[in-house]
């Protein structure tokens, strides 16, 4: 009986040197055999044997040379080092959030910045992100909302017809400048709040990270267009009140992601959507109306994320509803001694809704603003009820919301 002689697999790197990428072919060949297994290598580039010896030494593989039919043949013995590096490696979920177990309830600091689903070498530095629990940040709709946000981005230079001619009475143009001043400082808060959380969210929750990032970009664009409208007729920014800023500062001071989202997005930006829709309908000039339409669309998305996150969190933790109610009450208490919405903004809204400086127009403007305030409160009530507050509580909390709107 003829005895079979086992010969290890062989690869020919031909005239490719290891100074030109041949190591890839060898690595691939070694990948198919276990540590301790052998792979034969032949080649024809000048000095390939020396290069292979140096490469094997650096990689922790064994190597020996033999002659076969007058040609050199290398035998590489696969070392354990390449596999050893991944001993005790961590697996951080899965790239596709829709797969079961893809998003961890608790993201680990040792996963650091690695892509979700990556194999993370043990010994990678711990990178601490304060918001590392799914229940603190997650919303199942985040990926969809992000996709919508990306698709709905608009370019201020082309989306708004800045050259459309109009001329407002000076008092009305002053009122627009005052309103824009107010919108800018409110949008600054709406930019800073998610921006601060953005750096604290564990990158494992990348859908949330992406959505916050684009939300910040939205607000930057809003600040740009409000500023541009303010300057369109040569006005300078108008008045900023202590009460208005005190109200916004309570948003900046809120350390809890969910509570901040509740106060800023569900109540504040939700109220702003009513305000922007109002401006879209009643603003006295076409540029302001266009701006209001585009920014309201973005703000509605921010509200949708806030709602979606809170619905998710309340589903996990129904008792969190009490914390939300307390937050509204606390904010109301904290602002009890401030003026709330500044008089100039209120008056500016009336003038804007009036469109001209006559008693009849002002009367009509006044009624419209009263209706706006009622619509805002009603919107808040509806959203609070969707979050599971009963009618009475929703009505009460909607009324406690800051008079500054945001």
């Amino acid at each position, binding site marked *: 009986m003829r005895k079979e002689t086992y010969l290890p697999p062989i690869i020919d790197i031909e005239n490719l*040197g*290891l*100074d*030109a*990428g041949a190591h890839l072919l060898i690595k691939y060949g070694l990948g198919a055999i276990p540590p301790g297994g052998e792979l034969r290598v032949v080649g024809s580039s*000048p*000095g390939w044997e*020396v*290069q292979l*010896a*140096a*490469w094997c*030494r*650096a*990689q*922790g593989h064994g190597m020996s040379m033999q002659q076969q039919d007058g040609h050199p043949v290398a035998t590489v013995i696969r*070392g*354990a*080092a390449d596999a*050893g*590096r991944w*001993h*005790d490696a961590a697996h951080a979920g899965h790239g596709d959030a829709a797969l079961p177990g893809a998003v961890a309830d608790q993201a680990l600091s040792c996963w650091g910045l690695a892509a979700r689903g990556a194999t993370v*070498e*043990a*010994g990678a530095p711990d990178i601490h992100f304060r918001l590392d629990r799914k229940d603190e940040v997650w919303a199942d709709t985040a990926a969809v909302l992000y996709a919508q946000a990306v698709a709905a981005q608009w370019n201020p230079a082309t989306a708004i017809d800045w050259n459309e001619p109009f001329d407002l009475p000076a008092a009305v143009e002053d009122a627009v400048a005052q309103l824009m001043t107010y919108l800018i400082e409110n949008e600054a808060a709406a930019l800073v709040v998610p921006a601060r959380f953005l750096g604290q969210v564990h990158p494992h929750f990348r859908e949330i990270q992406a959505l916050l990032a684009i939300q910040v970009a939205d607000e930057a664009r809003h600040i740009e267009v409000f500023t541009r409208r303010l300057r369109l007729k040569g006005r300078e920014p108008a008045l900023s009140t202590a009460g208005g800023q005190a109200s916004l500062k309570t948003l900046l001071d809120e350390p809890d992601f969910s509570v901040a989202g509740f106060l800023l997005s569900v109540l504040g930006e939700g109220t702003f959507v009513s305000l922007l829709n109002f401006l879209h309908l009643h603003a006295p000039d076409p540029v302001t109306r266009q701006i209001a339409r585009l920014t309201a669309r973005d703000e509605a998305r921010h509200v949708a994320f806030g709602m979606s996150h809170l619905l998710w969190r309340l589903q996990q933790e129904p008792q969190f509803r009490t914390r939300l109610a307390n937050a509204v009450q606390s904010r109301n208490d904290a602002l009890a001694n401030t003026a709330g919405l500044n008089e100039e903004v209120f008056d500016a809204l009336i003038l804007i809704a009036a469109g001209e400086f006559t008693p009849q127009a002002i009367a009509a403007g006044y009624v419209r603003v009263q209706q706006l305030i009622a619509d805002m409160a009603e919107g808040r009530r509806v959203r609070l009820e969707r979050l599971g507050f009963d009618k009475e509580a929703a009505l009460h909390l909607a009324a406690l919301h800051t008079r500054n709107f945001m």
Partner: protein
Amino acid sequence: MAKPLLLGAVAYAPKVVTIWEGFKEYFRRHDFEFDYMLYSNYERQVEAQLDGSIDLAWNSPLAWVRAERMARAHGLEARALAMRDSDRDLCSVLVVRSDSRVATTGELTALAGQMIGFGALDSPQANLIPRDHLRAQGLLAGRDYTARRFDELGGKHGDHIGGERAAALALMAGEIDAAWMIDGNYLAFAREGILPAGATRIVARSGSYDHCNFTSICGISAASDEMAARFTELLLAMDWQDAQVRPLLELEGLKAWLPGRTSGYDLLMRAVDDEKFYDAEGNILATDYRY
């Protein structure tokens, strides 16, 4: 606190501090007191070991040759306790540009009259062994070829690979016709793009030689044999799979520590004699050596 085992090492790069601080922590985790002393060059380190200032030395191959000779001259015995897996069976290669007139097959007579780049004067891999190799082929510097030295950081025994890199750059710039380098650096310079793929050829390789080792000299160190043995045992136990240890091994360029061996230094000893670098007692003969 027990008296620590004191190791000498040469500060050839800033990472050396990171490496030995890491080792210190590793040994301490295993209840073994260890400390290190850094020297600016291997000559002073070898002399310090001979006068008992340090218990062990992390020696370059050239420092090993000198320590071994000096120990023998004092009636003592030097031992190589351990070395890296990457310290065994190295070779140096002579590299030319692809369009060189020198044939690939190792026929070096075509080097006649050409300018060959070498590393630092005290580099075993880029000067001493290469010159010896050419000498054995009947080629002498100044007579058969012109030697250009890329001398960087004397006393570091070529650990700082700047000399080899400078020679590789000069080769591609057309300033020299050939350059010597350690085989691993040939691949490293290719990865860095200094040697573009396909732009160079290897026309000669030296014989195999070993590189660094932990050297002890029996009878001169204050540390006991047991301490040296425990040091070696802990060193060999360093495991690439251990995430705490792996960064240190990566910095030091190894996958595993191996027991020391002294069989891989013959080539260098011959070169040291032929190039008149040290005498048999380990005295420095090279007159233009600055460290």
